[in-house]
C-alpha cells in the first residue's frame, strides 16, 4: 500500500482524500518503513559493537520506542504551530544556552547539560538543532524569497548566536550541526550565488585565522592527527588508525556478524557509539556499507521529496534544512571514522548508542511527517 501511494504521488499531484489511515495518524508510511529498517540494522550492529551486551540493546530499544512516540507527537502538530512558536522557543533556547555556560554541568571539560529541579536534565544545544532552522525559516518566510541582504544578515545572526554559545561549551560537533541546519535554511531560501560564493571565500580565508585564534589545542590536535595519524599511533592517532584498520580489514563482504576482531578484542574505541560504523564496515564489509548508505540515501531522497512538495515556503525551508542536517550527520560521522575528516563527536544518526540525538532526530522526522500530512485542500 505504501508503495502504491508512492507511485501515485510521483505520477501526479497528491490527492488529499485518498490517504486513509496513514494520513489520519499523520505518518508517512514510506519514511516510517525506511526508518524502521535502518533502526533494526542499527540494533544488530549495536549488539556486536557493544560486545553482545543485550542489556545495552534493550536500553537502546526503549530509547527508540520513546523516540518513535516523540515522532508521532511531533507529526500530529500542524506546521503552522511550529511557525507560531518558533521565536518563543528560540528565545527560551538561547537563555538555556547562556544558563548552561553559567551553571551547566558536564564532563570532560565541557559544560553541556542543564539540570533544572523537577525536570530531567537535558542538553539545550540538542534542542537548538531543531529550533534554529525552524526560527530561521520562520523569519525568512515572512518576506519575499529570495531574501534581501538585510534579511539574510538577520537570519545569519539568528543562526550564529546559538552556534557561538554552543562552541563556547565547547561542543564543536553540535555547533557544527546547528550551524549547518541554519545555513541550509538560508541557502534554500534562495540567497544569491554571489553571497554563497562570498561565504565560502570568507570561510577559506578565515580558516587560518580560526586555527590561530579560535581553535582549542585539542581541536588543532585532531586536525593534525587526521593528517598524520602515525605521528602518535598509541595516543591521538590510535582511534583513527584502529577504525581505518577495522574498516579496511572488512574487505568486500566483511568478517561476519559478531566476528569483528577489531571491535570484539577492544582495539576499536567507542565501538558502540561514535565509531559504530567501523563495526558494521568490519563485519559486513563494503557490501554492508553500501546497504547502510543506500538506506540513508533513500531516507534523504524521501525527505527531499516531502520538502519539494511541501505547501508553503516555511515548510519547504524547514524540511529541506532538517533533511540536509541529517545528511551532514551521516557524512561527518562516516567521514571521520573513515579518516576523511577530523574526529568530532558526531554519532551515526539512529544507529549509535545514546539517547538525546535519537530523540531529536526522530522529532525532526516527526516534523517532516507533519509537513507531509497536514495539507490544506487548496494548493496554493
Amino acid at each position, binding site marked *: 500500500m505504501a508503495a502504491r501511494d508512492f507511485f501515485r504521488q510521483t505520477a501526479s499531484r497528491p490527492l488529499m482524500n485518498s490517504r486513509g489511515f496513514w494520513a489520519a495518524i499523520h505518518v508517512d508510511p514510506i519514511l516510517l518503513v525506511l526508518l524502521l529498517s535502518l533502526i533494526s540494522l542499527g540494533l544488530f550492529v549495536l549488539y556486536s559493537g557493544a560486545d553482545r551486551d543485550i542489556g545495552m540493546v534493550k536500553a537502546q530499544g526503549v530509547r527508540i520506542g520513546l523516540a518513535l512516540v516523540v515522532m508521532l507527537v511531533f507529526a500530529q502538530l500542524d506546521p503552522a504551530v511550529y511557525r507560531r512558536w518558533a521565536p518563543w522557543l528560540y528565545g527560551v533556547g538561547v537563555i538555556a544556552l547562556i544558563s548552561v555556560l553559567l551553571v551547566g554541568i558536564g564532563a570532560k571539560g565541557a559544560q553541556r547539560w542543564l539540570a533544572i529541579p523537577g525536570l530531567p536534565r537535558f542538553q539545550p544545544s540538542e534542542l537548538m538543532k531543531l529550533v534554529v532552522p525552524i526560527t530561521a525559516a520562520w523569519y525568512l518566510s515572512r*518576506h*519575499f*524569497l*529570495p531574501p534581501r541582504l538585510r534579511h539574510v544578515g538577520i537570519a545569519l545572526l539568528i543562526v550564529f548566536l546559538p552556534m557561538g554559545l554552543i562552541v563556547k561549551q565547547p561542543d564543536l560537533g553540535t555547533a557544527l550541526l546547528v550551524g549547518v541546519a541554519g545555513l*541550509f535554511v538560508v*541557502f*534554500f531560501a*534562495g540567497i544569491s550565488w554571489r553571497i554563497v560564493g562570498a561565504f565560502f571565500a570568507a570561510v577559506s580565508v578565515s580558516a587560518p585565522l580560526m586555527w590561530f585564534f579560535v581553535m582549542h589545542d585539542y581541536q588543532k590536535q585532531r586536525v593534525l592527527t587526521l593528517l598524520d595519524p602515525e605521528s602518535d599511533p598509541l595516543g591521538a592517532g590510535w582511534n583513527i588508525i*584502529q577504525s*581505518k*584498520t*577495522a*574498516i*579496511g*580489514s*572488512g*574487505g*568486500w563482504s566483511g568478517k561476519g556478524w559478531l566476528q569483528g*576482531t*577489531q571491535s570484539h*578484542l*577492544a*582495539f576499536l574505541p567507542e565501538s558502540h557509539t561514535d565509531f559504530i560504523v567501523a563495526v558494521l*564496515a568490519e563485519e559486513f*564489509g*563494503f557490501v554492508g*556499507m*553500501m546497504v547502510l*548508505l543506500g538506506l540513508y*540515501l533513500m531516507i*534523504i531522497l524521501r525527505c*527531499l521529496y516531502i*520538502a*519539494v512538495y511541501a505547501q*508553503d*515556503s516555511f515548510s*519547504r*525551508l524547514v524540511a*529541506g534544512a532538517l533533511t*540536509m542536517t541529517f*545528511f551532514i550527520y551521516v*557524512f561527518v560521522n*562516516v*567521514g571521520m571514522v*573513515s*579518516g*576523511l575528516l577530523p574526529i568530532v563527536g558526531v554519532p551515526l544518526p539512529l544507529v549509535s548508542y545514546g539517547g538525546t540525538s535519537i530523540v531529536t532526530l526522530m522529532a525532526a522526522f516527526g516534523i517532516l511527517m507533519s509537513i507531509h500530512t497536514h495539507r490544506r485542500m487548496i494548493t*496554493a
Partner: protein
Amino acid sequence: MPWGEFKDTAAERRLFQRRTLVVLFFLLVMVGLLVGRLYQLQVVEHETFSTLSDKNRVQVQSVAPTRGLIYDRNGILIAENRPVFSVTVVPERVDDLDQTLDHLSRLLNVSDEDLTRFHRRLEEPRRPFQAIPLRYDLTEKEIARLAVHRYELPGVEVNAELVRYYPYGKMTSHVLGYVGRINRNELQHIDPVNYAGTNYIGKSGIERFYEDFLHGKVGYQNVETNARGRTLRVLESQNPESGHDIRLYLDMRLQKLAFDLLRGRRGAVVAIEPKTGGILALASVPGFDANQFVTGIGIDDYRALKDSPDKPLFNRALRGQYPPGSTIKPMLGIAALDSGATTRDRKIFDPGYFQLKEGGRRYRDWKRWGHGWVNLKDAITQSCDVYFYDVAIRMGVDVMSDYLGRFGFGSDTSLDVSGALPGLLPSREWKRAVRNAPWYPGDSVNMGIGQGFNLATPLQLATATAVIANRGHWKQPRLLKDVVDGDGVPSPLPEETRKDIKLKDPSEWEFVISGMEDVMQGAHGTARRAGSNASYTMAGKTGTAQVFSLDKDEEYDADEIRERLRDHALFVGFAPVEDPKIAVAVIVENGGSGSGTAAPLARQLFDAWILGFPDQDAGTLASVDGEQKSGEGTQ
C-alpha cells in the same frame, strides 16, 4: 510587507526546486566521496588493513623445547625435567609495582633475597612484556592463595615451567654440570630466536658441552590477544622439537661406590673403560647439590659452598692438578725402553740415594737403605726412585717430555668433558719461557719420579693408564655413549685426534705391564696387600705426592693442619691385565701413602666392576635413590 502584496508562491517553489537540485547534486558528490573512500579502504587497501588487523590481535609466542634427558649407561635417569610453579610479574601490566610486590609478600613467603633478585632482573635488559619471576617452587597452598587474590593483582601470573632436576644431585654435579638462568653475558652469544622461550642454559659440564644438542628447537604459537594483551586463544602452533636424550658411559653404581669410598675425605676417582675411552665414573668429593644452582642459589648458601675449606665446588677430577709422583713411572719406563735409555735387563745398584756427581746433592730414595740391585721391572714393582733418577738423566728432559706428551700429559685429551685442565708437562722451552731459567739436570731427576714441575689431573692419569692398558692404543676419554632413539642423528661427539703410541718393540708394553702387575700381586709389590686374594689379574702403580717439603713447619701441630699437610695418596691401575675392562686413577688428598689409602680403594672399584656390584640389580639403586628424590621433591 513591501509592495506587490502577493507572494509569488509559484516562483518561490521553483526557486526551492532549483536549490534542491543543486543540493542533491552536491549530496550525491559527497556520498560518492564516502563510497570512494570506503572502496579505497575496503577493496583497494584491504590487504594492508587485513594484515594490520591480524598484527593487532595475533601475537607470536615462543614455546620452549623440552630439554633432552641424560641417562647413565644402564638407563638410569640422571638429569630430568620437572614442573616448577613460579610466580611472575609483568611490570608493564602492573600499575603500582611496589604495592603489588608488597601485596605478594603478604600472600606468599617472599624473602628479601627474592626481592633483591627480582629488582636486579628488572634492571637487566629484557624483552618488553616479558614476565620476571619473583619466587620459584610455589607450594599448592600458595598457588591457591594467589588464585583467590588474582583479581587484585593484574600482571601477576603463576607459571608452570619445566626445570632441570638432578636426582643424584651431589653425585653427578661434577660430571653433568648444571643449567642455570641465562645471564647477561650469555644473552649476547645465544641465538635469540631459538632461545626466545628458554630461560635456562647449560653452565658447566655435559650440560654446557652438549647445550645445542640438549636444548632442542623452539616452537611457536600464534595467540589471539585483546587490546589489553590478554591471551584469548591459540590460533595455530608449531610444536617445539625437544632436545635429544643422551646416554653417558657413566655407571651410576660405580659412581656411587666411588663416592661412598671417598666419603669423609677429599679426593677424586676417575674410571675409564679402556676399549671405548668411556668414562665410567668421575667423582670429585665432596660434591655439591647442583639443584641448588638451577633456580638460583641463595647468597648465604653459595658463600658456604665457596668458603668451605673442603672446596666442594672445585672439580678435583678435572681441574685438580697434582704432582703425579710415582704413578708416572710406568709411562717413563716405556719411554726409557723405547728411547734406548735402558734395557729390560740393565741393572743398577741403589744405595738409598742418587748423586749427579760424586759428593753432590743426594737425591733420596723413599726406602732409606735402598733397594740394592734392581732392573726396570723391579724398579716399577718396588717403586725404586734411584733407578728412575738414573734413567731420567739418561733420557734427558726432551725425551721425557716427548713421551709423556704422547700419553696425554700437558694437554686436555678429553673429547666432551667440559672444563678439564691440561696439567703441566715441563720442558726446556717451558722453563725458559715461564721461569726464565735453564733446565738443570736436577730438574730431570725430580721429573723422573713425577715430582718437581710435573702436574697432572686425575683424568689425565686415568687416561694415560688406559693407554697403557690398551698397549698404546688411544681412545680419548669421553662421556657421551650414544643418543637415545637417535637414529640418523649424527653424534655430536668430536673427532678423535690422538695417534696411537707405536713402540719399536711392542712387547715392551707387556714388560712394563708385568711390572705393574707385580705391584699388585708380586711378592715385593708396593700394593700387594691391596691386590691380594683376587680371582682376576690386575696391574697398578702407587704414588705419593708431597704437599710440603719435609723440612718445613714442624711447629704446626694442630690436628687439622697436620692432616692437611700430609701427602696426597695416588694410585693408577687397570684390570684385568689380559683384557682390560677398567682403568682408574684415584687420588686422596692428604691420604698418606698411595699403597695404604688409594690402592685398596681402587681394588674395591675393580672388584665391583669385574665381579659385580654387591646389589647386582641396577633397579635397586634407582629405587633407593628414587625415594630420596621424591622426598626432596616435596620439601
